[in-house]
């Protein structure tokens, strides 16, 4: 019986190649996007699942709340908390501390090999390996990290640092990390690398005890409760009877004990389950937000739902053609249940084909969206979760998509079906009603997606075309080596200024406009008292304002003394002064000392246009310069200019790799997240439209085929082509109209929220709403019109003769 079902299903599919391809293609689009998203979500949830007792492992986070209401969550904790947490909070079995290092230069003293910079080195205490046990190839797990100047490395790094050396022979070898300080350590252990997905990416574990003196603690920012550093990570493992919420309460008590009550800033600690690590701050910026994943999942489901609706719609429309077969089968003794089974089998076969095609499309999508997928993401088609996907999804889809058409089909009355009577009672018909509604839903989502994508693009265009208040063209920048000696920096700056390609070079703490932010408070003298102002601070040199082309309103832009500052126009406003000249030479208390205002600059956007321009102070502190900004002479070949700059850079810093980037590219990165949302929505939009069009194409050809006789009679009676097109199109105009009404509300609410996130934004662009509706309507009419046109072109005599 099943074989018979499959045979007839297969022959039916072969016979109607167009119908089959439209059905399969539409559905496979939905399945492929769903499959890809399923894998992305699965990947995101696959991190760190292999640690024993992982549900009892937590990371402690710190939240600093300024009295202005700004909140700064940090995945790190103050150093002293790590020292006392296990003795003062009950329920903790083990604590593990990390102090992560960034861009550390690794040197193997044996043979003086420079191994390059790594983010995978960290200080760790022995407790860390208690919480996250490893397989040890050499060394003693209990004692390896107890002594200062000890290090445990993974097998991967063993092979990199000491190629060909056995783990056991590596013990006792020396390694050096050059960071703020030079760290030396002896290899005391070798552990296996993790093979599964993990956020614990570290491969060099230097004993925490290496940070031993108070001076070092201060150097690393571990000395006080008031200093929170994201490098200082604290993991804990609790016993199974402890409730994480009790833990938070105990942590609150620690806060009470160690922080002054009248402190303006409020600090609190919280526990973050290990399972959330990949969704918070992790160690290689590969974390994803759950909201993003949720959004993706919704989009996947919407597209799949669209494809399924489309499928139901087409199957139902098509089922009329199979009434005769139903009639025969019923007279031959087929029961309704058997017929339902038959049609479900057929649907299953179609869905199975669609799944196959979908896998091919998914591979294509994966390649197209490679840059959007998490690093390390791979799609293993034979992984157990994917095999389950193949087994369950087609089955579920076949049931969902097939049940309605098969119930309709199997319900035909045999003798009427054989006579060729369609079950079309005049008046209300559930089938027609459903088909129309499904079409409306499809178009609603298409229209909504189009509105979203266009409006996002509109706003992104708006913010990227706004004047930023400085000149970003022909500016390149590079990071200076950390804690580089001042004379070397100045030497580099001078060498650059001599070059004919360079108009000016500047050293500063950060870029003129970036995602980083340094805020502080300043006190403006006001009669007898002072007014406190929250300001953004930039650490710049005397050339900075000129190189970046920021307009100077008054005074000079050259900062030479550490007690000289520049302020911007918004600072002027805070000081309640109207003319820039009035603030010159005013003494302002900032950074614990009296500083003199020597110049006033125009407001400019130092952050994204999501934010307002803050009052700003520019100060100079050459010891903390980290960024080199170079303005090139105009009319340069930018690529060759960059090469020249890199040469100069390397002549001063021979051991560093010079990496110059363009400022405007950095600024475009501000809206990367938004561009990402736009692109994901754009892809969803294209898919939705494609599926809807396919659906409409098949549906309208079917409907019009049914109305061919009517069209012919009207033609004989003298209707013009335009009248016939109008007659056919009228229904669809109404359908698209309803879809439009349904689409605008969700689109409006989403966009309102998104736009409100920007301080600088466009007005809600209603013309895009209308335009999208009209655009979709035009596409619809084009498809329907084409079919109607063809129908109207056939010779009426021929059609009427057949009847």
């Amino acid at each position, binding site marked *: *019986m099943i074989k*018979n079902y499959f*045979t*007839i299903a297969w*022959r*039916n599919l072969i*016979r109607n190649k167009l119908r089959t391809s439209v059905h399969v293609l539409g559905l496979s689009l939905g399945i492929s996007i769903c499959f890809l998203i399923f894998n992305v979500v699965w990947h995101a949830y696959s991190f760190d699942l292999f640690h024993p007792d992982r549900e009892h492992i937590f990371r402690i986070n710190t939240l600093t709340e300024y009295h202005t209401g700004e909140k700064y969550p940090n995945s790190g904790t103050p150093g002293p908390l790590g020292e006392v947490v296990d003795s003062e909070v009950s329920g903790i079995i083990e604590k593990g501390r990390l102090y992560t290092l960034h861009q550390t230069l690794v040197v193997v003293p044996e043979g003086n090999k420079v191994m390059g910079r790594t983010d995978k080195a960290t200080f760790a205490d022995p407790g860390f390996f208690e919480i996250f046990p490893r397989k040890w190839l050499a060394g003693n797990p209990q004692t390896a990290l107890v002594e200062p100047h000890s290090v445990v490395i993974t097998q991967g790094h063993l092979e990199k640092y000491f190629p060909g050396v056995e783990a056991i022979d590596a013990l006792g070898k020396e390694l050096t990390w050059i960071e703020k300080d030079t760290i030396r350590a002896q290899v005391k252990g070798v552990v296996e690398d993790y093979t599964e997905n993990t956020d614990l990416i570290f491969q060099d574990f230097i004993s925490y005890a290496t940070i031993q003196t108070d001076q070092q603690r201060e150097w690393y920012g571990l000395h006080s409760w008031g200093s929170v550093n994201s490098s200082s990570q604290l993991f804990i493992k609790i016993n199974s009877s402890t409730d994480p919420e009790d833990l938070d309460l105990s942590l609150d008590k620690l806060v009470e004990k160690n922080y002054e009550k009248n402190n303006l800033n409020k600090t609190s600690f919280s526990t973050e389950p290990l399972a959330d690590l990949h969704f918070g701050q992790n160690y290689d910026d590969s974390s994803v937000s759950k909201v993003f994943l949720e959004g993706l999942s919704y989009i996947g489901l919407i597209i799949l739902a669209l494809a399924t609706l489309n499928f139901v719609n087409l199957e139902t429309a098509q089922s009329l053609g199979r009434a*005769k*077969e139903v*009639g*025969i*089968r*019923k*007279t*031959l*003794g*087929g*029961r309704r249940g*058997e017929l339902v089974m038959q049609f479900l089998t057929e649907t299953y076969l179609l869905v199975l084909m669609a799944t196959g095609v979908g896998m091919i499309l998914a591979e294509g999508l994966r390649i197209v969206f490679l840059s959007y997928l998490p690093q390390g993401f791979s799609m293993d088609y034979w992984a157990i979760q994917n095999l389950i996907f193949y087994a369950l999804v087609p089955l579920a889809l076949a049931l969902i998509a097939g049940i309605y058409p098969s119930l309709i089909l199997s319900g035909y009355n*045999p*003798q009427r079906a*054989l006579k060729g009577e369609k079950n079309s009672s005049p008046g209300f018909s559930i089938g027609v009603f459903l088909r129309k509604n499904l079409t409306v839903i499809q178009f609603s989502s298409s229209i909504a997606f189009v509105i979203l994508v266009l409006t996002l693009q509109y706003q992104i265009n708006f913010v990227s075309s706004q004047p930023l208040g400085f000149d970003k063209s022909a500016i390149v920048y590079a990071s200076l080596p950390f804690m580089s000696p001042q004379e070397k920096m100045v030497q580099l700056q001078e060498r650059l200024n001599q070059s004919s390609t360079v108009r000016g070079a500047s050293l500063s703490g950060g870029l003129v406009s970036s995602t980083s932010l340094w805020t502080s408070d300043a006190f403006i003298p006001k009669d007898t008292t002072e007014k406190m102002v929250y300001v953004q601070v930039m650490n710049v040199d005397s050339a900075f304002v000129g190189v970046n082309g920021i307009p100077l309103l008054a005074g000079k832009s050259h900062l030479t003394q550490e007690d000289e500052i520049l302020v911007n126009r918004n600072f002027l406003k805070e000081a309640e002064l109207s003319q820039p000249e009035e603030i010159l030479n005013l003494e302002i208390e900032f950074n614990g000392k009296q500083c003199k205002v020597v110049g006033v600059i125009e407001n400019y956007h130092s952050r994204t246009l999501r934010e307002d321009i803050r009052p700003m102070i520019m100060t100079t502190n050459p010891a903390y310069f980290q960024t080199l900004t170079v303005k090139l002479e105009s009319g340069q070949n930018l690529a060759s200019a960059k090469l020249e700059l890199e040469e100069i850079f390397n002549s001063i810093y021979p051991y560093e790799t010079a990496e110059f980037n363009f400022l405007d590219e950095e600024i475009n990165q501000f809206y990367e997240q938004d561009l990402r949302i736009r692109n994901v929505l754009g892809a969803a939009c294209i898919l939705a439209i494609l599926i809807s069009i396919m659906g409409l194409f098949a549906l309208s050809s079917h409907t019009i085929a049914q109305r061919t006789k009517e069209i012919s009679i009207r033609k004989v009676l003298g209707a013009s082509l335009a009248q016939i097109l109008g007659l056919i199109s009228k229904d669809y105009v109404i359908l698209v109209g309803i879809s439009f009404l349904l689409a605008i509300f969700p689109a409006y609410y989403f966009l309102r929220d998104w736009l409100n996130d920007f301080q600088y934004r466009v007005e809600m662009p209603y013309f895009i709403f209308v335009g999208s509706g009209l655009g979709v309507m035009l596409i619809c009419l084009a498809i329907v019109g084409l079919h109607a046109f063809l129908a109207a072109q056939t010779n009426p005599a021929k059609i009427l003769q057949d009847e």
Partner: protein
Amino acid sequence: MIELQHIDKYIESRFQRIFLLKGINLTISQGEFITLMGPSGAGKSTLLNILGLLDEDFEGEYRFGDKDIRKMKQRELSNLHKSEFGYIFQAYHLIDELTVYENIETPLLYRNVSSSERKSIIADLLDRFKMVAKKDLFPAQLSGGQQQLVGIARAIAGKPSLLLADEPTGNLHSAQAKEIMEIFQELHREGTTIIQATHARENAEYGTRLIQLIDGRIESDEKI
């Protein structure tokens, strides 16, 4: 075998009832070969559909053997339908997507006949109708007469006791029609009860009983 009493079949229209059948009383015994004749619209097909359990929307009493059709459950009805009835249509009504072999096999599949038994039944039928060479062809590749032969083979594959044929020769030319009627005669001789509806007087000659229908009534009922 079959007993019909006071069978009425009508369509309710807005102002009046239009009767398709009115007051039909009919007794059919095992082994009869009945021909229903009458002009278009006389109710031949309607009566045949009611007899064949394809139309349950009628009034009156229908007894099959000692069972009242009206009182049977859906499942019993379906089983009775499968075990006792075979249908032959004017337009053959083969399933276009299936081959000759598979068309004949379909009713057997619905009767859960085992695979080996199906093979032997179909082999016998193909042999009998000299269609062995055509078993893998599709209906569209056959002539009308050949299609009707497949239709008959399919109808008798399930070994029904009652064969219902609605204008079985209506689409065929006279030589083909003659062939079909001879097969009917043979089946009748083997003991199958046959009821056919037809326009053609000559077809009635093969039967044992001729019933004339006019305007939904039995006009005459004679043995031949």
